[in-house]
């Protein structure tokens, strides 16, 4: 066993550092983007530049992302302050969510298939 310890602290330091870079850049440049999203792009870039980094961070990041849904709980509990809204606007909110979800699924899937067929057709014609 060459390496038994998972570099957890280092991986978390990297995540926080990327987030920090993201937050600083967003704030100083006034970008319309949450800092962590820019931090995500910074990490993609780092991984592309230093492919060996992936092996180091993979165990910690995979474990962390496996519990992603736990992190929504505190914000979700905040619904307690909005229960009144569900009484008055509940049906409208549910209908908006159902309608928008179904519509987004259909539009995305047909756009993907349509464009993918166009590209294929063009490819086939070019090879003729």
């Amino acid at each position, binding site marked *: 066993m060459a390496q038994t310890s998972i570099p957890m602290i280092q991986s978390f330091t990297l*995540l*926080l550092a*990327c*987030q920090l870079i*993201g937050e600083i850049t967003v704030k100083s440049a006034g970008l*319309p*983007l*949450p*800092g*962590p*999203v820019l*931090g*995500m*792009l*910074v*990490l*993609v870039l780092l*991984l*592309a530049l230093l492919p060996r980094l992936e092996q180091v*961070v*993979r165990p910690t*990041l*995979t474990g*962390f*992302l496996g519990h*992603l*849904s*736990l*992190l*929504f*709980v*505190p*914000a*979700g*509990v*905040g*619904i*307690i*302050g909005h229960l009144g809204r569900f009484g008055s*606007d509940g*049906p*409208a*909110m549910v209908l*908006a*969510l159902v*309608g*928008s*979800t179904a519509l*987004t*699924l*259909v*539009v*995305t*899937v047909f*756009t*993907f*298939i349509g*464009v*993918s067929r166009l*590209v294929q057709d063009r490819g086939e014609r070019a090879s003729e």
Partner: protein
Amino acid sequence: MTGLSEIWVYLAQSPLLWLTATLAAYSVGDAAFRAARRNPLVNPVLIAVTLLVAVLWLTDTPYETYFEGAQFVHFLLGPATVALALPLYTNLSLIKRSALPMTVALIAGSVTAILSALGIGWALGLSGDTLLALAPKSATAPVAIGVAEQIGAPANLTAVFVILTGILGAVIVTPLFNALGITDWRARGFAVGVTSHGIGTARAFQVHPTAGAFSGIGMGLNALLTAILAPLIVRWLF
């Protein structure tokens, strides 16, 4: 000897109690989810939130007191968003191969998600920050919460909309696409990832591995695009 009520008074104010309660409630939700063989209707977050809301309501605890403890979990949303870089990077070659259909479908889907939620909500009489909270609902929760804070929508309302959108998409995607006769797993997966983020992606992995991979990409890309588009669209409309 200290009475039970005095211990409660002490504990109810300390972050330890509510941090423990958050993890315990999630563990209950997760156990139920596994017991139900990962049925998307048995969502662990929804179960945990329901349990905690009931406890707070019964003990007359203000959300602010609860959040003193829960903030340690909430804080991790930022680093978790950064960590989404890993699946995005892993699938980079897959992204390149279907780049064009993916890009066009992403833009169409992201715009549809934001505009249709705002449009239907508005047509049904929603207004003010309730309406705004709908805009980022198809993005994964950490990003949606960040966007909500940015556009002045109540972040916890957005969090609940995000979870409900995830569950809805995960439940309707398979019957809907089967009825429409769609057999392209790339398209099916990508659509559910764009629409219903992580919860939809979990569902896609259950149905087909290709759908799962494309769903993960759809989730990551739409997190990014919603973060850019939602503030712009909201600024343009309101």
